[in-house]
C-alpha cells in the first residue's frame, strides 16, 4: 500500500513543481526568513501554509503589522497556484471596511434587466473567482461578517434567490492587530479558517532589499489576459460555462509565466490530481492517536460532560494538569478537519507515503491558535514569556509541545487503549484500559454508548 503511494508520488513529480513555486516566491517575490523546521528542512510558515491553503482548497487568515506583506503573499500564491494574473486577483479582492455591502461582495441586481421588469444577478468577481482574498477582514463590522459566513464555509453565494456554487475555491483573509479601526472577528467566522499565520517583519536587511526591488509584481501581470478574464467574468453566460473559458485563459497565462519566469504554475488538472494524491494519504497510528489525545484535552470536562464557554472548572478537579483546565471553550469539529487537511498537504509536499506525527505537530499550532480561548490567568501568566511568535500562536505551540510530551510518555498505552476500543466495538467481551488522561475516559464513553445500543 505504502509502496503504491510512493510510486504515485514519484511518477507525477508534482512536488518538485510546487516546491519550485515555493522557491520562486521566496527568492523573488516575498522575502522573509525561514521560521519553521519540519523534518530537518526550514521553511517560511507564511509561504508554506499559504501554498498548502491554495492546494487544499483551504482557508487561511494572515495576521500581521500593516505593510508586512500579508496581502501580497496571498496574491503571489494565488497567481502561481491558480494561474491568474495579478491584475485580475486585485480586481476580485474584497476590502474590509465599515461601509462594505452585500452588493460589492456577492452580487447586485442587473439594473438594465430590472428596468425591463426582469430579475437577474450580476455576480461580483470575488464570488466567481476560485481565489478569494478578503483584505483587512477585521475592519468589517461584526454584523457584516456574518454576510460572508456561508460563502466562506461552503462556497455557496446567494443573492436574490439565485445561487452560484464554487466548485474549487480557496480563501485568504488578512487582519491587522487590534487598533482603532478594527472589530473583533466573530467566533463562527474565526472557526471557519483552517489556519492562521503571521506575516512577519523580515528583518532590517531583507526589508531594505524589498525597498530596493520595487515593481516586482509586474512580472505576474499580463494586460491582455487580464482583459480577457475580465470579459469572461462580466459576460452574461451561466457561471458553469464561464469556468472552462476562464481556465483556458488561465492556461495561456500559465504558459506565459512558464516561458518568461521558468516557473510552472499549476493547471486545473494538476491541482485536481494533486488533491487526489493528497486525499489518499492517511494518518498513521501515532499521528491519529496524538491528534485524538489533543482533541480530548481541548474538549473534556469530567464534571459537565464537555467544555462549554459558559461553564467554569470545578475546584479540586482531578484533571487540573491538562489543557481543559486552561481554556474556556470547546474544540470545534472543524479543528480535526483542518488538522487532517493541512497534514495531508504537508505530507504530500514532503513526498511521504503517510501522515506521521511530525506533519501533525507542524500544522497543529496554526490550526489551533485562533480556535482556543485561553483563560485570563493563563494569558497573564505567559504574557511576558520570551517568544518569536504572536501570543496566540506561541500559546498554541506551547500547548502542542506539552501534549506531545505527554504522548511520548504513554503512546503505547494510548494506542493499546484505542486498539482495545476497536476490539470491543467488534463485539469482543473486553474491558477498556484505564489511564490518567481524558482520552481514556472518552474511549470508555464511546464504549458505554456502544454497549447501551
Amino acid at each position: 500500500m505504502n509502496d503504491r503511494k510512493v510510486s504515485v508520488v514519484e511518477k507525477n513529480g508534482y512536488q518538485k513543481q510546487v516546491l519550485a513555486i515555493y522557491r520562486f516566491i521566496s527568492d523573488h517575490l516575498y522575502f522573509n526568513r525561514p521560521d519553521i523546521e519540519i523534518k530537518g528542512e526550514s521553511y517560511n510558515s507564511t509561504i508554506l501554509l499559504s501554498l498548502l491553503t491554495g492546494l487544499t482548497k483551504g482557508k487561511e487568515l494572515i495576521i500581521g503589522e500593516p505593510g508586512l506583506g500579508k496581502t501580497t503573499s496571498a496574491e503571489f500564491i494565488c497567481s502561481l497556484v491558480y494561474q491568474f494574473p495579478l491584475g485580475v486577483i486585485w480586481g476580485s479582492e474584497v476590502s474590509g471596511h465599515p461601509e462594505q455591502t452585500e452588493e460589492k461582495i456577492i452580487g447586485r441586481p442587473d439594473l438594465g434587466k430590472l428596468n425591463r421588469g426582469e430579475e437577474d444577478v450580476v455576480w461580483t468577481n470575488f464570488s466567481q473567482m476560485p481565489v478569494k482574498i478578503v483584505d483587512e477582514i477585521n475592519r468589517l463590522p461584526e454584523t457584516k461578517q456574518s454576510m460572508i459566513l456561508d460563502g466562506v464555509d461552503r462556497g455557496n453565494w446567494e443573492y436574490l434567490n439565485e445561487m452560484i456554487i464554487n466548485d474549487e475555491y480557496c480563501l485568504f483573509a488578512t487582519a491587522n492587530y487590534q487598533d482603532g479601526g478594527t472589530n473583533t472577528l466573530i467566533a463562527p467566522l474565526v472557526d471557519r479558517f483552517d489556519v492562521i499565520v503571521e506575516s512577519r517583519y523580515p528583518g532590517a536587511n531583507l526589508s531594505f532589499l524589498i525597498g530596493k526591488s520595487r515593481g516586482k509584481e509586474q512580472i505576474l501581470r499580463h494586460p491582455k489576459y487580464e482583459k480577457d478574464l475580465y470579459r469572461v467574468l462580466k459576460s452574461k453566460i451561466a457561471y458553469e460555462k464561464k469556468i472552462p473559458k476562464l481556465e483556458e485563459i488561465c492556461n495561456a497565462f500559465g504558459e506565459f509565466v512558464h516561458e518568461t519566469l521558468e516557473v510552472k504554475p499549476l493547471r486545473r488538472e494538476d491541482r485536481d490530481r494533486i488533491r487526489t494524491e493528497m486525499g489518499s494519504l492517511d494518518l498513521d497510528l501515532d499521528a491519529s492517536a496524538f491528534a485524538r489525545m489533543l482533541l480530548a484535552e481541548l474538549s473534556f470536562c469530567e464534571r459537565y460532560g464537555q467544555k462549554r464557554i459558559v461553564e467554569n472548572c470545578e475546584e479540586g478537579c482531578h484533571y487540573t494538569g491538562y489543557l481543559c483546565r486552561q481554556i474556556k471553550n470547546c474544540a470545534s469539529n472543524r479543528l480535526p478537519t483542518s488538522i487532517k487537511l493541512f497534514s495531508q498537504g504537508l505530507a504530500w509536499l514532503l513526498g511521504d507515503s503517510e501522515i506521521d506525527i511530525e506533519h501533525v505537530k507542524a500544522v497543529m499550532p496554526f490550526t489551533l491558535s485562533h480556535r482556543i480561548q485561553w483563560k485570563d490567568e493563563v494569558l497573564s501568566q505567559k504574557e511576558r514569556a520570551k517568544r518569536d511568535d504572536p501570543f496566540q500562536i506561541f500559546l498554541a505551540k506551547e500547548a502542542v509541545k506539552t501534549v506531545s510530551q505527554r504522548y511520548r510518555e504513554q503512546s503505547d498505552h494510548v494506542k493499546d487503549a484505542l486498539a482495545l476500543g476497536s476490539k470491543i466495538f467488534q463485539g469482543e467481551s473486553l474491558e477498556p484500559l484505564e489511564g490518567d488522561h481524558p482520552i481514556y475516559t472518552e474511549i470508555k464513553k464511546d464504549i458505554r454508548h456502544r454497549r447501551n445500543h
Partner: protein
Amino acid sequence: MKNACSKKKTPNPLQQEVHDTLNPFEEFKTFQFRKTEIPLDQIVQSTEVIMDQIRLGYERLLEEEAKELVWMVQYNTIIKAYEVAEKYIKEIDYSAEDIEDFCFALESPQKIPYLIPGPAGIYISALCNYAKEEEIVLKLSELKTEINLVGFRLPKGKRLMVEGDTGDFTGIGLEGGELVVEGNTKNWTGAGMRGGKILVKKNIGLHTGEWMMGGEIYVGGRVRGLGNIVEGKVYERDKLVFPGKARYPNLYY
C-alpha cells in the same frame, strides 16, 4: 428464460451502514494490542484476589454465627466465632496490609454489606494472630467505626500496634502478645487476659482487666474503672493502680 424470483438480492449499502455501528477506533483494528503488565498491575490484581478471599471468609462467618444479623457477646459465642474465623483464615495467604485494607472495606457497603462490630473484631483478631508478620501496624485513625475485640488472643511473640481508637473488649484473652493502642479504648479492655502487655496511650473505659489472670496493662491517660482483677498489673500514667490499696473494682473516678 431466467426466473425473476431466482435473482440474487444485492444488499443495499446504505441499509448496511445503518445497521453497522460506526467504530470510531476503526483504524486501530489492525494494531496489535499488547497487554502490558506493569508491576503495579500485578500488585493490585493479587491484592484484590486476597481481599476477595478475606471478604468471603468474613461473610461466611456472619452466615454461620450471626444469621439474624444479631450477635451477643458471650464467652461461648466469642470462642465459637473465633474457631470459625480460624478455619477460613488458615487457607488465605495474606499480609498485615491486607488486614488494614479489610478494616477500611468494612466501612464501605459496596464491598462489605454488613458491619457487625463483634464478629468483625473477632475476625480481625484472628487475621492478626495468623499473620506471617510478627509486628503488625493497623492505621485505623481514619476509620469512623471503632472495632471491638481487637487483639483477642494475641499470642506470645506478636506485637500489634493500632493507630487510632478501638472499641470494647480490646485485648481480651491476650495470650502473651503485646498490644499497643495509640488512642483510646473502651470498656472491658484486657478482660480475661492471661499474659502479655497492653499499652493504651490515651484513656481506657470501665471494667478494665476484668478477670485478668496475668500480664500488664499500661494506660497513658486515665483509667475510668477497673474490673475484678484476679492477677496482673495495671498502671495509670506510670503509677501502679493494681494491685493497690486505694483501688476497688469498678471504682469511678
